[in-house]
C-alpha cells in the first residue's frame, strides 16, 4: 500500500486541455474520491495515475516513486473499469488469476490466492462459470477479485458502480467500503455522483473543467465550499445563492442585502462589487420578523423534512424545514439564515471569501 501524490498534472488532447493543473495527495490507506461532472477531467486524471494515458506535464508519485512516464504494468496498481472489462473468453477463475499468471507465479500459489479472494468476495460458487452469463453484481465482484488478488499498491476505480441498477448500487457501495476498511488499501474512486462520494469517501477532490476546485474531507467540502461551483455541485438541493451589489470590509461581519443587514462570519478579506451570499437550505429557516420576504412556490415532502421553495426579490430560495412545520403554497413568509454557516463568494471569480469560519478549511489552500 502506498501514498499517491499528484503534482501539477496536465493533459492536453490537441488544443483541448482535459486536465489543466491537478495537485493533490492521497494518503496511504485512504478511500479517495475524484468527483465532478462529466468531462471535468476526473477520468483522465485517474487514467494518468494508472498509466493508460501519459501526462503532458507534471508528476505522479506512487509510494514516493515518480511513475508518470512508466508503463501501466510497472506501476503495480489495479484498475476497476466501469464496464468491468472481464476477459470474455475466460471463465471467472481464469479472469481472477490472469494478473498472477503474468507474474509467473506458481500454480499452487495462484490457486490458493484465487480461493482466498473468492472467499472474501463470496463468489466461490461461480468460479468455473463463463463470465458471459453473470449478473451485474457478480461481474462487479469478479472485477474486484481480479483487482485485489494481486495485492497492488493502490486500487483505481472508474465509476465501478455506474453500470449497476440503483437498488444494487447501494448494496455494492457498502460492500466496497467494507472491503476497503478490511484491506486498508489506498483507493482512488472516480464518480460523478456526489452522494456516492459523500457516503463512501474519506476525502474528496472536486474537479471542474480540468481544474481541482477543492480537496478535503466530505464534511469540510459540504460546509465550507471553496468555490460557488462546489457549493452548487454538492448537496441536494444545492446551496442557495443570493446575488447582490455590496461590500464587506476585512474584519466586517455584516453585508447589506436589499437594504437589510445580514450577519455573516467575520471576514478575513475585504471586497466590494458583485457578491454572492451562499446559504444551505437546512440553514435557511422561516422567520416572521425577517425583512427578507417571499411567496411560497412549492413544497416537497421528504419524510422527516420538507423542501420549501420561496420566491424572493433575490431569486428562488429553498429551505429545508421539519415536515410538521406549517407551509402552504401561496402564502408569504419571512426567511433568515444561520449566520455562522454562511459563505460569501466573489461573483466574478466564484471564489469563496476567507472568513473566521472557513479559514480552517480553506486557509491552507
Amino acid at each position, binding site marked *: 500500500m502506498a501514498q499517491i501524490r499528484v503534482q501539477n498534472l496536465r493533459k492536453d488532447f490537441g488544443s483541448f486541455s482535459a486536465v489543466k493543473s491537478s495537485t493533490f495527495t492521497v494518503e496511504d490507506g485512504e478511500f479517495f474520491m475524484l468527483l465532478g461532472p462529466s468531462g471535468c477531467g476526473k477520468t483522465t486524471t485517474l487514467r494518468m495515475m*494508472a498509466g493508460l494515458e501519459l501526462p503532458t506535464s507534471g508528476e505522479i508519485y506512487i509510494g514516493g516513486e515518480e511513475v508518470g512516464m512508466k*508503463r*501501466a504494468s510497472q506501476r503495480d496498481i489495479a484498475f476497476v473499469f466501469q*464496464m468491468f*472489462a472481464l*476477459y470474455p473468453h475466460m471463465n471467472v477463475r481464469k479472469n481472477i488469476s490472469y*494478473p498472477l499468471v*503474468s507474474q509467473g507465479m506458481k500454480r499452487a500459489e495462484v490457486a490458493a490466492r484465487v480461493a482466498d479472494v473468492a472467499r472474501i468476495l463470496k463468489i466461490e460458487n461461480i468460479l468455473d462459470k463463463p463470465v458471459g452469463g453473470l449478473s451485474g453484481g457478480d461481474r462487479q465482484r469478479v472485477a474486484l477479485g481480479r483487482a485485489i488478488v494481486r495485492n497492488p499498491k493502490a486500487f483505481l476505480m472508474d465509476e465501478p458502480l455506474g453500470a449497476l441498477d440503483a437498488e444494487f448500487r447501494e448494496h455494492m457501495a457498502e460492500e466496497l467500503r467494507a472491503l476497503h476498511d478490511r484491506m486498508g488499501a489506498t483507493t482512488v474512486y472516480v464518480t460523478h455522483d456526489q452522494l456516492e462520494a459523500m457516503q463512501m469517501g474519506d476525502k474528496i477532490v472536486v474537479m471542474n473543467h480540468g481544474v481541482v476546485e477543492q480537496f478535503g474531507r466530505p464534511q469540510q467540502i459540504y460546509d465550507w465550499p471553496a468555490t460557488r461551483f462546489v457549493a452548487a455541485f454538492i448537496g441536494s438541493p444545492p446551496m442557495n445563492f443570493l446575488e447582490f451589489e455590496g461590500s464587506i470590509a476585512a474584519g466586517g461581519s455584516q453585508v447589506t442585502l436589499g437594504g437589510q443587514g445580514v450577519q455573516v462570519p467575520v471576514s478575513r478579506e475585504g471586497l466590494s462589487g458583485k457578491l454572492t451570499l451562499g446559504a444551505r437550505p437546512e440553514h435557511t429557516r422561516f422567520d416572521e420578523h425577517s425583512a427578507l420576504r417571499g411567496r411560497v412556490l412549492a413544497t416537497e415532502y421528504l419524510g422527516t423534512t420538507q423542501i420549501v421553495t420561496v420566491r424572493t426579490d433575490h431569486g428562488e430560495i429553498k429551505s429545508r424545514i421539519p415536515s410538521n412545520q406549517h407551509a402552504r403554497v401561496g402564502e408569504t413568509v419571512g426567511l433568515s439564515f444561520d449566520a455562522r454557516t454562511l459563505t460569501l463568494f466573489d461573483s466574478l471569480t466564484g471564489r469563496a471569501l476567507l472568513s473566521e469560519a472557513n479559514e480552517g478549511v480553506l486557509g491552507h489552500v
Partner: protein
Amino acid sequence: MSSYSVAEPSGAQKLVAGALVILYACITSLPLLWIIATGFKSPSDAIAYPPKVIFEPTVEGYVNLFTTRTRMPQEQLDALGPPQTWYDKIVRKDGVIITGASRFAGRFYNSVIIGFGSTALCIVLGTAAAYAFSRFKVPFKDDLLFFILSTRMMPPIAVAIPIFLMFRQLGLSDTHAGLILLYTAVNLSLSVWLLKGFIDEIPVEYEEAALIDGYTRFQAFYKVVLPQAATGIASTAIFCLIFAWNEYAFAVLLTSGTAQTAPPFIPTIIGVSGQDWPAVAAGATIFLVPVMVFTILLRKHLLRGITFGAVRK
C-alpha cells in the same frame, strides 16, 4: 393466426417453410451435383442425349485426370499381358495404356500453396493494419483507409497489362511468390476493412485491463484481442481464400508452368485427348473440396461473422 405473428409458427407453416428451403437448396445444388455425377460417368454417358440421370458409375474420369495415356493397337496391347493394376484395367478397355502421371496433382498443389499462402499473408498483414488503424493515432488515418479501399474500386484485371510487364521485369512471372503477392495485394483492402470493423467492436478496456494486469502491449493484443477477433478473422480468411482459390484471369496470364494453379489447368484437359468431360468434372470436384472443408470447419464463425455488429449487444 396472422401471417405477421411473432408467435411460434404453426405446424403447417413450418412444413411450407421447410419445403421451400429444401426446394431452393435443390435448385442451387443441382449444378454442383451434376458436376459430381459427371465425374463418375463414362465419356459416352457424359455426352449422351437425352442426358443420363441413371448410369453405371466409373472412376475412369478420375483415372484420366491423374494420368497421361497413349492409344495402342490391339495386338501390342495383347502382347503386354494382363493389366497390372485396377486403373490399368479401366483404361485398357478403351485401348489405351497409362504412360505416366498427369500434371494435375502439381497444379492442385500450386493452388493450395498460393491460395492458403496468400490468405495467411492477408490475415497477418490485415490484422496488424486493422489493429493499428483501430487503436492508434495514425496520421492521415481516414485518407489512408480511403486509399486502401480505393484499390478495390476497379476490377483488378483492368491493370493486367501493367502487372504482366511488372512481373516480367521483376522475374515474378510463373512463380508462387508472384501470385501470392498479387492475390494478397488484391485482397488486403478487403481484409483490412473487414478486420478493422471487427476490432473496433472489441472494447479497448479489455486491452487496458491486460496492460494493468502486467502484460505488454503485444501480449495484450495476442492474448486478449486476437481470441475475440477470431470470428472476424475466420470469416475474412474464408473470403480471401475463396477469391484466391477461384481466381482465373491472372492465373492464366501470369503462370504457365511451375506455378500454374488448377483453374487454368482444368480446361486444358479438353483437347489433350478429346472432350474428356468426366475428367474435367473430376478435376472440378476435387478442386471444390478444400474450400468446402475450410468453409464447413469455420462455418459457425462465418455465420456469426457476417451478421456481427448488425445488432448492438
